[in-house]
């Protein structure tokens, strides 16, 4: 008899369980997403730099710093892509009541994608070997 009763009591209390658990803290988020794509006909690898700095001191409530970057280069020659991103949050809990569990460290999410592709289709010298069509003059 005890088991069915306890099970029924637990079922009745389930809807109220979220209110019994600690409140979800409004954390701050720092998100940085960078995509760099270079497709080039030069046989020299492209220069791709993504310098990201994130800093947050102490607790933080309800703030967000989002930076995104997309660089695309398609060229028969060289490609250079340089990106610098700096994000700083200080006093992120300023003016917020000191409620336990409300403030918490900032979540930092850096996402970086770099693609460097040599494309023979963009390389004039390579294409010349395939589709010259025109007889080369005798040079030298």
């Amino acid at each position, binding site marked *: 008899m005890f088991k069915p009763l306890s099970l029924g009591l637990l079922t009745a209390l389930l809807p109220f369980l979220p209110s019994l658990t600690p409140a979800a803290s409004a954390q701050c988020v720092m998100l940085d997403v960078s995509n760099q794509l*270079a497709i080039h*006909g030069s046989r020299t690898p492209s220069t791709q730099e993504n310098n990201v700095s994130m800093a947050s001191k102490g607790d*933080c*409530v*309800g*703030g*967000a*710093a*989002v*930076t*995104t*970057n*997309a*660089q*695309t*280069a*398609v*060229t*028969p*020659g*060289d*490609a*250079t*892509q*340089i*990106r*610098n*991103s*700096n*994000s*700083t*949050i*200080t*006093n*992120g*809990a*300023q*003016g*917020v009541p000191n409620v336990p569990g409300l403030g918490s460290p900032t979540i930092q999410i850096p996402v970086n994608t770099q693609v460097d592709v040599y494309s023979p289709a963009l390389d*004039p*010298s390579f*294409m*010349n070997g395939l*589709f*010259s*069509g*025109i*007889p*080369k*003059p005798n*040079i*030298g």
Partner: protein
Amino acid sequence: MSAKSFKFCALAVVTSICGFAAAPAFAQNAASVIQTSDQNVVQNGSGNVAVQGNVQTGVVNQLGGDVPYAGIQCFVAPCQLPGVNGATVVQGNHQTIDQVGVGNTAIQGNSSTANVLQGLGSYPFPYYPAMGVNGSQVLQGNAQTATQVGVGNSAVQGNAANATVLQD
């Protein structure tokens, strides 16, 4: 053939050869894309929101190959080539957000697009450079700064730059 006419002909031939030999070696096969971006966010306070976005697209399409035009005799390198020249695309972006206070919002966006299309131009034998085939440069810059001090401020900045160069 007299000696005078012979000298004249010889001079003409040398001039012609020198003309080819001194063909400007301007940026053959050198098409570069340079993209830079600086993004800075400084927040002092609670509940501030900063969003920065940057999109840079540089496309250079050069038709033609490194085959000297048929019928032209090139004696000394570099030989002039059809349809292959220099194109430079430079794209820059600088975004700064400074927020001091509570509940401020700043949104910055930048979009730069450059398309350079260089076609195979006609070859005006025996002159240089070929018509319609030359170097092109595209420079695009963007600078955005949002400074907010106080409570509940909002700032939205947008920038869009498009450049298209067509050479046939």
